[in-house]
């Protein structure tokens, strides 16, 4: 059943700015909706998304997982392969991201946060994106992946650009593809250097790794490394910015976190549910599938709207209320199933430590601009600038 009135256009700036009313209509009236604008089906209810995430045999990632896929990337990265190869690839990388292996980076995260804070000391207003989340994210990711210092700001700018889409042409623009190529070339140089002089770092290990006696293909090593840089920088930076926005807009929650920093962990979980940056990912149907009276065909693409599942009143009571006491188990802020975010532990840790440091220096802050400049992206959602004023 297609509605002549209702449209869901993930390229629209209105959806970038506030997708949640659209999601509610999708959940209530069109739970299995074909978007002519996105040329794919959209699943918006929590249960349907979880079922799809747990059924990779039907909802395959092998044709790409970004709403607008980057050229020649699908099939060569963790997010764009299916088990069993996915699981073997993930096994090579996962250990570097496990919580128990991250102790070494804690001091580094705090230092990165303090250094960023020192950069805007004495200023009444600051741009959280430019002055804080970008700087902290780049420092943490460079350390985690063992990337050489220098170029860090350029790498950050390109990583953020490559996930965007052009709202007018409804696809990746030349500047987005060029940014992707730039990060790919950068990764290629790092990989060549590591293969020549291998160390203990993740990229050295990964670039020399084998699965069942076969070394990974150059394309797998290159595109997986490129994706780790992209996902690490964009996702961590985007999430921290959304977290700052929530704490700026919900002063009581922020004050409780400032008084008792242990509550930051709960506030992070609620932010992952409430409006995390990873709003929508894509799968491709491996077989015909009927859902809510609609028949989706093998080969059709399907958008899994995590941001909508996280606001589904069938799963979460009063879903549009930001409540740090909620403890929302099973939220979709990191996706789910075998493709659940690789960086869950580092994302939680970096956000918690960065905000502990921020709150020591800047305990009270408020948003300056009522209307925010949202990033044009069909997959991710965060503001390009978030000016905060000390109170």
């Amino acid at each position, binding site marked *: 059943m297609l509605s002549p009135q209702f449209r869901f256009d993930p390229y629209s700036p209105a959806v970038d700015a506030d997708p949640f009313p659209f999601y509610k209509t999708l959940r209530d009236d069109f739970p299995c909706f074909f978007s002519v604008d996105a040329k794919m089906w959209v699943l918006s209810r929590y249960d349907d998304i979880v079922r799809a995430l747990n059924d990779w045999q039907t909802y395959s990632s092998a044709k790409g997982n970004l709403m607008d896929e980057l050229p020649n990337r699908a099939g060569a990265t963790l997010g764009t392969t299916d*088990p069993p190869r996915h*699981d073997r690839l993930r096994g090579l990388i996962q250990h570097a*991201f*496990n*919580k128990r292996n991250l102790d070494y980076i804690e001091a580094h995260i705090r230092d990165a946060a303090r250094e960023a804070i020192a950069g805007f000391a004495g200023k009444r207003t600051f741009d959280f994106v430019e002055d804080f989340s970008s700087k902290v994210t780049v420092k943490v990711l460079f350390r985690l992946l063992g990337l050489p210092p220098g170029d860090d700001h350029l790498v950050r700018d390109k990583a953020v650009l490559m996930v965007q889409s052009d709202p007018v042409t409804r696809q990746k623009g030349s500047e987005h593809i060029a940014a992707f190529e730039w990060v790919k070339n950068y990764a290629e140089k790092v990989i060549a250097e590591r293969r020549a002089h291998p160390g203990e770092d993740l990229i050295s290990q990964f670039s020399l790794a084998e699965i069942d006696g076969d070394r990974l293909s150059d394309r797998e090593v290159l595109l997986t490394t490129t994706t780790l840089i992209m996902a690490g920088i964009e996702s961590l930076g985007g999430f921290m910015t959304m977290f700052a926005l929530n704490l700026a807009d919900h002063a009581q929650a922020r004050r409780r976190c400032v008084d008792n920093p242990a509550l930051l962990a709960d506030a992070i979980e609620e932010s992952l549910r409430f409006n995390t940056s990873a709003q929508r990912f894509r799968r491709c149907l491996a077989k015909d599938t009927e859902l809510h009276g609609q028949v989706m065909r093998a080969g059709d693409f399907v958008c899994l709207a995590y941001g909508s599942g996280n606001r589904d009143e069938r799963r979460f009571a009063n879903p549009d209320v930001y409540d740090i006491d909620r403890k929302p188990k099973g939220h979709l802020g990191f996706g789910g199933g*075998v493709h*659940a975010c*690789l960086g869950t*532990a580092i994302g939680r840790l970096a956000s918690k430590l960065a905000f502990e440091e921020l709150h020591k220096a800047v305990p009270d802050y408020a948003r300056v601009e009522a209307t925010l400049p949202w990033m044009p992206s069909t997959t991710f959602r965060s503001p390009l600038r978030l000016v905060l004023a000390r109170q």
Partner: protein
Amino acid sequence: MAKIVYVEHQGIEHVVDVPDGWTVMQGAVTNGVPGIEAECGGSCSCGTCHVYVEGEPAAGLAPPEDTENAMLDMVAAEVKPSSRLACQLKVTDTLDGLVVRMPASQG
């Protein structure tokens, strides 16, 4: 569909109906049962969904494969003969009544 009895380390029980085809790990995580972290989402590559399986259905489980055994070497809590990774246990009717005890720690 099978009823899985999850038992937290402190003894708190959670009985969950888990659909066929899901894993014991998914049944816990999706329903908010504490004690399983599953950092890798079920790719058998993190060792943070370590559990002890008990009850009659446990006897019918296929033994762990090499990748599961390799990860069981890396789990945080004591490994016992009943140790399994919950992400590798696919639910079928025959698992109805499986008791899944959580270790003290996953990492």
